[in-house]
């Protein structure tokens, strides 16, 4: 294991700890909500997220560099593209089939139809911000 001689701590350890905090936070929130302990789950989720960010802020070594940011940017772009193209095709198809009476329209679908334009709106704002700043 490579160690940073200046700080005597392995940057990879910091990254793994921070990532573990966020993964655990997500798991706790999901499972806690399922189990009916939503408020407890949210509180634990918040604490773990603060811990995860705290590790990143207080670590005196480089944890995430330009390569990580490039991966993040590409992954974010791919995620938006996948959701966009999926919604572009699926929403009209599902709504059309539901109106024609072939399939029922579950209530969860309305949530997706609201979230989809909201995501596009956030993307548009972010795009304009980065383009004209």
């Amino acid at each position, binding site marked *: 294991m490579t*160690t*940073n*001689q*200046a700080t005597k701590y392995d*940057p990879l350890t910091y990254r793994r700890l921070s990532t573990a905090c966020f993964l655990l936070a997500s798991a706790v929130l999901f499972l806690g909500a399922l189990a009916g302990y939503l408020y407890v789950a949210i509180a634990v989720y918040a604490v773990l997220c603060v811990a995860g960010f705290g590790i990143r802020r207080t670590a005196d070594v*480089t944890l995430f*560099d*330009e*390569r990580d940011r490039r991966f993040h940017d590409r992954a974010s772009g791919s995620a938006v593209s996948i959701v966009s193209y999926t919604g572009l095709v699926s929403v009209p198809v599902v709504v059309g089939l539901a109106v024609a009476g072939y399939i029922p329209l579950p209530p969860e679908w309305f949530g997706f139809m609201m979230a989809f334009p909201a995501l596009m709106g956030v993307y548009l704002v972010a795009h304009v911000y980065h383009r004209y700043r």
Partner: protein
Amino acid sequence: MKSDLRERRAAAGESQAALAEAVGVTRQTINAIERERYDPSLELAFKLAAYFDCRIEELFDPTLDGKSRANEAEQN
């Protein structure tokens, strides 16, 4: 992008971790550059060139597929 970063680093007796700390990136990034799995940004390329006291063109060797004025002049 090809580079002789590994050779220069070895000649300088530096570890990947030490070089990474010197230029402000992670050891994994230095490893990826040496394995030609990652092309550094212009800023990082300048930092690496400055670290080894050489020019960017001496450190990195991009394979350019596009035309250049020199190539067009030779063909004409």
